[in-house]
């Protein structure tokens, strides 16, 4: 039984269809990657799973509960068991690293400050930033901010965690650290991880299962090995990063010959 079950999901933004009948299963304790070109609505999918957006039709079940049928209070109860790592980190800029990680504990538990201190230090230790606890978010590099956000996302020991483009814009060392952390955290805490990304190499390296999305539909799904062996030209173009293929290099329109040799002067 999957932890997250998405059925026949339709979602529009204005007149533009973002999802047209998407079905996705995400299994407990696995790392599932949702990949696809920019603008396919990968981040939107995470917001739909987290209940921040409502689908036009279709259902999303998390741990057996239909996210969009829950009351406000029940949704917030469910979110306590969901972690989310935003692309920007979304750290609270007026709090130190320590207070950011302590924030969910202080909001949701009545633990004594001494215990909060120990828990936060352990979480920060796991992402290697225990000694950066007194820094402000503005003093952190992008990679460090994401590691703090990761520590914060797992403070309440959630059942699952969603990563929104965790590798975008990282230098190779930060990237390696993040890949390693996501893999290690998932194993150590038996977390169900959902990674939204278009960094093929890194994501395929740690994912157990991959869904490829394009133009509002699931184009292909399978393990990284299965996808690499896929006969679909589109999948091959995406996985290997080829500049031309089913997704053309040239913006569609008239041919070059037509534009050069026709009588019509382009306006």
């Amino acid at each position, binding site marked *: 039984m999957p932890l997250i079950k998405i059925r026949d999901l339709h979602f529009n933004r204005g007149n533009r269809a973002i999802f047209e009948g998407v079905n996705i299963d995400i299994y407990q304790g696995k790392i599932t990657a949702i990949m696809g070109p920019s603008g396919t609505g990968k981040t939107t999918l995470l917001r739909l799973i987290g209940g*921040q957006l409502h689908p036009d039709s279709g259902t999303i079940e998390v741990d057996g509960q239909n996210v969009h049928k829950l009351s406000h209070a029940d949704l*917030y*109860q469910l979110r306590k068991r969901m972690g*989310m790592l*935003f692309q920007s980190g979304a*750290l609270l*800029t007026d709090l130190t690293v320590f207070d950011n990680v302590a924030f969910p504990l202080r909001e*949701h538990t009545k633990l004594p400050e001494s215990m909060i201190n120990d828990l936060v230090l352990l979480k920060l230790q796991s992402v290697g930033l225990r000694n950066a606890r007194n820094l402000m978010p503005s003093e952190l590099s992008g990679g460090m901010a994401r590691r703090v956000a990761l520590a914060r996302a797992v403070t309440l020991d959630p059942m699952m965690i969603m990563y929104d483009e965790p590798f975008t814009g990282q230098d190779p060392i930060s990237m390696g650290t993040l890949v390693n952390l996501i893999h290690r955290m998932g194993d150590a805490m038996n977390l169900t991880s959902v990674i939204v990304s278009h960094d093929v190499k890194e994501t395929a390296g740690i994912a157990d299962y991959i869904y490829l999305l394009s133009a509002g539909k699931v184009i292909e799904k399978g393990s990284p090995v299965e996808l690499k062996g896929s006969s679909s030209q589109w999948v091959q173009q995406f996985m290997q990063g080829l500049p031309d293929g089913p997704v053309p290099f040239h913006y569609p329109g008239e041919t070059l010959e037509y534009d050069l040799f026709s009588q019509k002067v382009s306006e």
Partner: protein
Amino acid sequence: MIDTIRSLGRWGLSVFERLGRGHLFLFDTLRGVPELFLRFSLVTQQLFSVGVLSVFLILISGLFVGMVLGLQGYNTLVDFGAEESLGVMVSLSLVRELGPVVCALLFAGRAGSALTAEIGLMKSTEQLSGMEMMAVDPMRRVIAPRFLAGFISMPLLAALFSAVGIFGGFLVGHGLLGVDDGAFWSQMQVKTDWYDDVLNGVIKSVVFGFVVTWIALFEGYDATPTSEGVGRATTRTVVHSAFAILGLDFMLTALMFGEE
């Protein structure tokens, strides 16, 4: 022609849509207020940044407004030999009108714009979304404490403004222009009514505090999450607050003093 009518219609619809959103936002905010009394520390922090940090501006402005009132009032009253009524003139102008209104305009410029920018930036840096995903309701954790702090601060700041203004009027009237100090204070005490003047001024400042804080928070929360969007929202806060303050001031004045 059709295009003009169409764009007018579209504009009208968008205005009403925003008004609707603004009222739903206010409703959500007010729902978060009662539980703040259990966690008043959240409000205390905001009272500092919204209220205490505005005190200096309010004191200086109040002093100068009072001093100008003293000068201008004296020049008018002396023609009628009524310069001893300067205290009455200064105090009534301030507690009835200028205290709440000028203070609210300054409050919108100082604290209101800061609130909008802060909330707008929190939105654009996904801090509000981040809180939602941590199961912390930003309406209760971020918006409601700021709203209550603005609501409490504004009448207190207006009271300070009026008090310092009266003192400024006295400094100029007595110190510079030689109005008798006994006459200044005694006439003021006799002619300024606690209920009709002071309380009505307080009611005005409470209403302005409510409206300005509401506008500022809503504009921040509803801002387009880009730097340009936050900039526009901050401007809107100041402009809309000014309109609201002046419009409401007229209505409240008509209700309070219209029968006299």
